[in-house]
């Protein structure tokens, strides 16, 4: 069986741009959540989010015809910036294209929803009806992809083109599990000898009027606007929903021997991936726990790990009333008597829920735990919920040797994914 390692990291997050800044944010339990600044949300029921602040450096290789669309779509900007970081770091002084045959390099990224600009549409709505002729006329002279509806895959295409990656270009849109599934499927493709290397991860920003408005309609978001940075409260008794975040994380995966041959930096080894479906309800987790349990149990089995081998679990931990107790019970069922001894934390408490990018950012948080020997905290956990009875690493990160970690991602619509990751074994 071919082994797969992580050799490059890039991250754009609400607690920092770049891996060093992100790690610093985790180390100091910083919150990236505050009042929304990227648009005027003052009349929205939810006015807080985890936004990326500061300049996001757009790589020079982002060019037209995609450039103007990428610049108009925050998540796409985050994606190209994170990919540039990861590729530069993994291939300093060279390029992925000079290390591998182009058709053996895949691009597997999770992506958020299409950006839809209501302000572009509004001038063409009359009497509550769209004037199709007026709409098309307005689009005629605008650069392709730059207005109205910006497809979600453009950043993926730009990254693949830059890397000269001619293997599969997969755009995973599995909502909250998108990034985890993208990483997992690329891992399997390298393991199965279809690919030698892959650019993987996710990018998303739902921090826009339709995104925030849509989740408000679903009553999924926290409305604790007054709490600002303390509003994202996974596993806390007083949690009232999740807080949206935005950003991107990109990782470089390589087959172990190939990585060794080119003396690549190796951060971690991907050990296993599994996914499952609840097949229960559109918006509620399955109370039988079958889907979540299956994803974790299969990941453990495929990695040949015993429950006691796991030193840290990065929980999906959204902070919704339903998810957190469900996930806690599922962890108990899988890990049995050792469940209470494993630190479980939700980094969404710091960065919010990055939806299509969540699994990638959280996998990098696991790599932080493996390489730095620090388990990230669940900040804002002030009042334990009796229904959530695990060790959630409240408030402060904790020093601990972490050899193996699991990262959970559970999606709206019933998709579940789990990745097992560890230090490189001999």
């Amino acid at each position, binding site marked *: 069986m071919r082994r797969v390692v992580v050799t490059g990291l890039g991250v754009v997050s609400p607690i920092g741009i770049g891996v060093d800044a992100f790690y610093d944010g985790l180390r100091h339990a910083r919150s990236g959540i505050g009042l929304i600044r990227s648009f005027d*949300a*003052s*009349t929205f*029921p939810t006015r807080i989010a985890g936004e990326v602040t500061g300049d996001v450096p757009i790589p020079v290789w982002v060019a037209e015809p995609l450039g103007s669309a990428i610049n108009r779509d925050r998540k796409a900007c985050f994606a190209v910036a994170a990919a540039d970081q990861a590729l530069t770091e993994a291939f300093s002084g060279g390029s992925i294209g000079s290390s591998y045959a182009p*058709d053996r390099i895949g691009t597997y990224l999770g*992506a958020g*929803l*299409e950006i*839809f600009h*209501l*302000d572009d*549409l*509004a001038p063409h*709505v009359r009497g509550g*009806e*769209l*004037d*199709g*002729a*007026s*709409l*098309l006329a307005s*689009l005629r002279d605008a650069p*392709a*992809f730059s207005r*109205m*509806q910006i*497809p979600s895959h453009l950043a993926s*295409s730009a990254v693949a083109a830059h890397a000269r990656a*001619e*293997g*599969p*270009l997969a755009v*995973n*849109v*599995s*909502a909250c599990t998108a990034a985890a*599934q993208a990483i997992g*499927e690329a891992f*399997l493709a390298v393991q*199965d000898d*279809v690919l030698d290397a892959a650019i993987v991860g996710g990018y998303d920003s739902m921090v826009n*009027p339709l995104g925030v*408005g*849509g*989740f408000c309609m*679903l009553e999924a978001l926290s409305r604790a606007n007054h709490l600002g940075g303390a509003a994202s409260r996974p596993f806390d008794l007083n949690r009232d929903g999740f807080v949206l975040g935005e950003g991107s994380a990109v990782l470089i995966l390589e087959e172990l021997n190939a990585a060794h041959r080119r003396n690549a930096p190796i951060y971690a080894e991907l050990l296993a991936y*599994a996914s*499952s*479906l609840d*097949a229960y*309800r*559109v918006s509620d987790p399955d109370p039988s726990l*079958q*889907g979540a349990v299956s994803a974790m149990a299969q990941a453990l089995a495929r990695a040949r790990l015993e429950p006691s081998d796991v030193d840290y679990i990065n929980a999906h931990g959204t902070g919704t009333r339903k998810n957190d107790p469900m996930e806690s019970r599922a962890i108990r069922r899988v890990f049995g008597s050792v469940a209470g001894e494993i630190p479980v934390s939700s980094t969404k408490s710091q960065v919010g829920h990055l939806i299509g990018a969540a699994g990638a950012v959280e996998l990098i948080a696991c790599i932080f735990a493996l390489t730095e020997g620090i388990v990230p905290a669940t900040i804002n956990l002030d009042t334990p919920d009796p229904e959530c009875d695990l060790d959630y690493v409240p408030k402060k990160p904790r020093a601990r040797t972490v050899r193996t970690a699991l990262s959970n991602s559970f*999606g*709206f*619509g*019933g*998709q579940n994914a789990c990745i097992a990751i560890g230090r490189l074994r001999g």
Partner: protein
Amino acid sequence: MTEVVISGIGMHGAFGDFGDTLDALAQGRTAVTRVSVDGAPGFPDVLGAPAGPYDPGCYAPDRKLVKYMSRTAQLAVLASGRAIERAGLMDDPQSRAAMALFVATGYIAFDLSNVARSAEASKTADGAFDLGRMGEEGLRLCHPLMPFKMLLNMPLGLVSIAFGIRGENFVLYPGADQAGIAFETAWRGIRNGRFVRALVGGCGQGLSPIPLATLIRQDRVACPDDTGGGRFPIADLAAFVILESAQAAEDRGARAIARIDSVRLARPQRSSQSLAAFFGGDPDGHRPDSVVVTGCIDSVDLQVLTDAAASAWPGTPPALASFDDRLGHCAAASLPLALGLAVESMSRGSVPVQQDLSAPRDLLILSAAADEALFSCRVRSVEAPQ
């Protein structure tokens, strides 16, 4: 390596399921017609193939589930249900539960009646869009279930809920290459023993104003006054196939419809030379009875492929067959559609657009995507020698 067979196929398009579609093609009918787009007065008519009438709730375990479904999701559930029935899995919940599910889907077809109302209510007296008004008034006018119809993973989620599918899964977006990746993942997963059965397919609703505007801007939509070609008639449809290990199909007494011997993905340059190399790289090399092509937009594309086939198999190159001009094109569903039609043709003993080809037993399916991705798979009748 585990042998992989197709045990079920299902679709819903202009003519209905695969059988009806092949009947229509055999009669020389076309699904492509002039289409006026609903909900956007003034929008130009286009050439397209709208899905035929259907009951959106016919496979929903609870009809309340339908209210969460976009038209794309409805088509996905309908096509999946037909594939599951054809595979004989409808009365076998245990086998369905263990099944993997990989879906490709198209651009979001925003519900304009909701979005336009919201946009109107978000305007100030002088007609300018105002975010404050959107927060106060615009959101209130949207249907509370609208987000479910926008989320791109919902067709997959709803198929899983409708049929109790709990296995490995993902949903990709938005083009034909994504359906190829989904299919290759399913095939490889069975070959390598990760699972024994997968439902894989695609769905899309391109004949809606917002995705259509995107496609028109990409200059990819055929219009009634087109003279130059090079554009697609857009179709609303879904198509799914069930892949299964031959052993698993045999164990449950299912009839394998066809065998999948090889699957390849690549993104070569579109020249006859590189395409010939792509054809020639097919692991078993010998000439198929026919090449069923989807996703080629014009005669130039087809000529390149014809030349490539002639170069790869000199002497008597296989003919190329394409159904796109008569059934329309739905990128995310084009591969499972072509595959299903090829398989159904094989089981009937003729390919409707190729009158001269009798009893095809060995077909190469080739799906070409807009970004130059190519997918091919070799489908053989189960009786054909390996």
